[in-house]
């Protein structure tokens, strides 16, 4: 990881546990799409857990079942989780577009087949590089699928736009010398 990465060897956070098929309309409802993303964030997941947006703390984890983030390509579905300070989304599987969007925005998305063992408000610690999720509340350890190197690089860079910015700058620098 680079020095300014968020450090997936992160400190512990609480688990917010959701089931299968959490869709993009639930994450970022369409009627808030016209406004600033910050406004949509206040309504994130409200139709399945009205307490979530108000009570989630920076560093907490969103735990999903299968097919997390299905539906629309709207990346606000991932962005609202960034705005709320979520450290990572950990699920059994992700919808493909959401998965790409998450990394593009610098949000870690980790595949873990054992999310069903996690209870609401369990304290978790994730080491994405090692592929290990520790449940500090139950003492269990869960193996996660390793995140591909080019996606870890996106997280280290803070997302696609900062990564491209760096690439363009270094290219301009070379051309200038």
């Amino acid at each position, binding site marked *: 990881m680079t020095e300014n990465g968020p450090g997936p060897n992160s400190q512990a956070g609480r688990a917010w546990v959701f089931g299968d098929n959490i869709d993009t309309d639930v994450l970022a409802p369409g009627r808030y*799409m016209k406004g600033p993303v910050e406004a949509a964030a206040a309504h994130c997941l409200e139709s399945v857990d009205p307490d979530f947006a108000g009570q989630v703390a920076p560093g907490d984890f969103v735990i999903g079942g299968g097919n997390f983030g299905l539906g629309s390509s709207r990346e606000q579905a991932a962005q609202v989780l960034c705005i709320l300070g979520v450290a990572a989304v950990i699920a059994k599987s992700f919808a493909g577009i959401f998965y*790409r969007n998450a990394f593009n925005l610098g949000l870690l998305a980790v595949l873990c087949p054992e999310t069903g063992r996690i209870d609401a408000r369990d304290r978790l610690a994730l080491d994405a590089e090692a592929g290990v999720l520790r449940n500090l509340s139950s003492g269990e350890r869960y193996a996660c699928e390793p995140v591909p190197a080019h996606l870890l690089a996106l997280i280290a860079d803070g997302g696609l736009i900062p990564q491209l910015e760096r690439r363009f700058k270094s290219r301009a620098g070379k051309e200038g010398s």
Partner: protein
Amino acid sequence: MAQTLAEKIIARAAGRAAVTPGEIVTCRVDLAMVHDSSGPRRLAPMLERLGVGVWDPDRLVVITDHFVPAFDAASAAIQALTRDWVAAAGVRNFYDMQGVCHIVLPERGHLRPGLFVVGGDSHSCTGGAFGCFMFGVGATDMAGVLATGETWIRVPETIRLRWSGRLGRGVAAKDMMLALCARLGMDGGGYQVIQYDGAAVTELPMAERMTLCNMAVELGAQTGLIAPDATTADYLRDVGAELDGEAGDLARWQSDPDAAYRTTLDFDAGALAPQVAAPHSPANAAPVGEIGPVAVDRAYIGACTGAKLIDLRMAAEVLKGRKVARGTRLLVAPASARAAEQAAAEGTLEVLTEAGASILPTGCGACAGYGGALLAEDEVCIASTARNFKGRMGATSSRVYLASPYTVAAAAVTGRIGDPRELLDGAAP
């Protein structure tokens, strides 16, 4: 080495002789499409930050459809920003309020076999009906494409869904997709490619093939794909698509006979009954007879999935000489200006309005739940759209059933969900 159609298109875009599922490759993008919601208003700040413009403005198509028509000052501002940006960026392919992007793009001749296309909307997989590899991405991904002309892809495997037989009267491509959602689940596609083929698919007109590919995302696939044939070529010729060179070489854009599939599943179109998906998932689909006579407040014919000219015709077949039931509202938002124009010219639109339908502006409309025609608390809607997620079309407690235009129109007439074949076979009451 034998290759699937998807692998051939990706290999071409990656500048390779062949690609293997699982490998990550960088592809040159032939065409990019964005709409007013995921488009300029989100892309402009990112491109500004990068200090670059669009890599090739002639390879970008911009279409307004989500905030159409603008319903308040904020949505009007998004439309205005879109128009200003298009002019400043030198984008010539701009379709303003001409219909839903997935319909307008092929209608105006932008798609053709063999292209590698990205769209800033999840239903971009609709383009696969034309034998191109087209998939949906978010705005930041799209900004990367516009800045560099490239994107990365993990080469998907292909899942082959082979449909034999022939759809019965009153049964449509939408029913095939709802049945597949129930059978495979919304993650059955596993972000791989779904290739539709077989006699029943070959027989479908392009508009129905578009419905198959449109809902590939509801199966969790990266995209859907149908190999081009004479039907494809006829459509492309009609809309003036460029068919010189690679795109016209239909023999090249086919899966090789011995290509490797992740799996092949067989289905019989002749045995398929009209399907209805209960709230809140397309995967909650079952034959209409198993759903029960649920009373509906609203019947909605709309969206890229269910309001093309062919869909309006299906609804008209049921509605001809009949009236919408008392206590039920029928709303129709044609999927494109051309579809509306043709429906008006041939009398289809008149059948709908005489039955009591309210015609809404062409665009994403109520399907996207952005603002117009939202559902109230506890209201029940049956829609020809693709998604019935909780709260998508309005209040959290509203309930949306999904079905074909035939079945939606039948529910409008009787006020409750039922088998449209009963109305198609009998005489009008």
